């Protein structure tokens, strides 16, 4: 990719006997939003920790704006804005003070106060800028968490599950901000296990599972991998895992995954498979409370590729 802001290849990280990240590679161009989609524990956070220079890798390279990133490479770090999953802000400082603090660490000097005001506007916290952040709601803290990552106008913004635990209104505000940043030319690496967010925001998606990227491409590319499949979401009266095996064995069912009382099924034809699925559920002594049939999406792709649901 000619104008890639981030290029990483062969990233590898091992903890003892556990291979946390194995041969991960992808690139992100300016103005592109790349989604790293995978369930909890898939290796997303370890991957971005290496890209952000927080962890030394055991193999591979990551280059940001032409600078190879390591834990000691200050030039590469200056080009990255990290928004960690944790609310990494001081609760006993105000939003303005938090922004000023990190702005100074990013080396902003003369224009710091103006830049802080700009960010406060962007994250819509200007009217609460001088309140201690411990008095903020969860959504306000999330917005500040993102604002800190933007304070130095980075080339690459890394957002690690930025909407976890956020109310719908704040979540929407965050997603709108990310869309706007991408449109303004910033490269964005966005990790999530919310398929809807990846579908809405990301130009390209890498699906990561057990430390490896198992598929990559645009939403259209990935959905095409599933083919003309339907996805069925059933809510049952009890533990859905008891019917997982019998449903998987039904002719025309590609994959089946249970999570609590929910059953996710990918089938060649929903109308053909559904009666048999309901029969299998009833045979297991359970009732079907609701059925939802959808077009193939990234959730279907993940289910198709791994046999697991994203939220497992």
């Amino acid at each position, binding site marked *: 990719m000619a104008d890639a802001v981030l290029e990483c290849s062969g990233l590898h990280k091992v903890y003892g006997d556990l291979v946390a990240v194995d041969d991960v590679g992808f690139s992100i161009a300016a103005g592109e939003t790349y989604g790293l989609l995978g369930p909890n524990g898939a290796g997303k956070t370890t991957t971005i920790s290496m890209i952000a*220079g*927080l962890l*030394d890798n055991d193999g591979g390279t990551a280059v940001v704006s032409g600078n190879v990133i390591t*834990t000691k490479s200050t*030039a590469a770090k200056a080009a990255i804005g990290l928004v960690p999953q944790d609310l990494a802000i001081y609760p*006993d400082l105000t939003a303005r003070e938090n922004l000023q603090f*990190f702005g100074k*660490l990013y080396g902003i000097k003369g224009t710091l106060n103006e830049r802080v005001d700009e960010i406060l506007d962007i994250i819509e916290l200007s009217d609460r800028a001088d309140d201690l952040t411990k008095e903020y709601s969860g959504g306000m803290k999330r917005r500040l968490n993102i604002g800190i990552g933007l304070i130095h106008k980075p080339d690459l913004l890394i957002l690690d599950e930025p909407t976890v635990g956020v109310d719908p209104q704040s979540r929407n505000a965050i997603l709108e901000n990310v869309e706007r940043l991408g449109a303004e030319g910033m490269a964005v690496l966005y990790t999530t296990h919310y398929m809807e967010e990846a579908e809405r925001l990301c130009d390209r998606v890498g699906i990561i599972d057990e430390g490896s990227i198992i598929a990559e491409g645009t939403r259209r590319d990935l959905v095409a991998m599933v083919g003309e499949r339907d996805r069925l979401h059933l809510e049952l009266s009890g533990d859905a895992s008891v019917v997982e095996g019998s449903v998987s064995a039904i002719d025309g069912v590609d994959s089946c995954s249970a999570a609590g009382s929910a059953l996710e099924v990918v089938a060649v034809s929903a109308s053909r498979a559904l009666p048999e699925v309901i029969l299998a559920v009833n045979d297991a002594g359970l009732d079907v409370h609701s059925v939802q049939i959808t077009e193939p999406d990234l959730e279907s792709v993940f289910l198709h590729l791994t046999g697991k649901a994203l939220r497992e």
Partner: protein
Amino acid sequence: MKTLTIAASSLRRLFRERSNIFFIFVLPIVLILVLGLVFGSGFTSRVALIAPDNDELAGDITVSISTSTAFETIPADDVEDARARLRRNEIDAVIVIPDDYGESLLAGDNAEIAYYSTPSSGGFVVRSVVEAAIAEQAAVIRAGRFAADATDADPATALDTAQLVQGSIAAIGVETEGGVSGGSGNQFDLGAAQQLLLFMFLTALTSSTALIQSRRLGVSHRMLSTPTSAGAIVGGETLGRFLIVMLQGVFIVVAAGVLFDVEWGDPVAATLVVMTFALTGTGAGMLLGSLFSSEQQAGGFAIFGALMLAALGGSMVPLEIFPDTMVTVAHFTPHAWGNDAFATLIRHGGGVTDIATELAVLTAYGLALIALSSVVFRRRLTH
């Protein structure tokens, strides 16, 4: 520059919490005031003195002890009654001069003066006065005995001659040390030094919780994602804690000087003691903050550890009343070295060279702890 930014944020966060202002600035001064009033010159030790009548030597030592301004002497007749009063804390010490005191000494035998006290700060002062009086009289008696042996003179005559000679030479001054009363300094001096060291170390250790909070919230890790080296982060956190402890130390020194006329001795030397002790406390606090993972655990350990070390190091009761073994043990704590240094400055008017050993030990403690904590904290950041 980034080191200063991180250090400044530590200070700002500390003073955001109003209760910290009370514990760091107000409480130490209140305690210095209270302890000074309770154990200072406002409080005069009371000593029961039991001595035989018609014994010239006993009379001499009684006069010598009674004229001390360090305590009030109360005549008593019954030893058991006096000891009972001592147990009830009505008096601070009992001195018993035996009935055959003068007779034994003139016969060339030993005589024992019984001394009973409670482990109070007044007790050791009384004891030091008694020991000084005995030493003064013993010198005369030894001279008399020597004269009697050398000239075959009558022991009583030789003793009279020795006493006459003693009167013509410079008298041995009996100076009460310890600041409890009389002597050099005022009633707040040593108590202020002890509280200064106790609170500086307590603040240093409890400030470790803020370091743990930064780590737990992910702020320390986030700092590492900026173009800031791990060394600058460790340096900033260390400097911040050092400044907090120094600020408290300087405040206590100045406030105690202004409010209670505490004489800290040579200002340069006193500043160096505060600085080296702050360095030690900072290292200990950083180590605690790097080793523990929860603020609650570290906070509990910090308070317990700071009070234990203070007690062991002579910041609760003076090192002078410690048994010899405990004095040795006490010097494994930085407090003991700090207290020794202040004792030299306050009581003896010492200077930097007089406390060079104490300063060297405190500096070594500080540098070793900071080096160790830097390694541990850096590992916590980057692994």
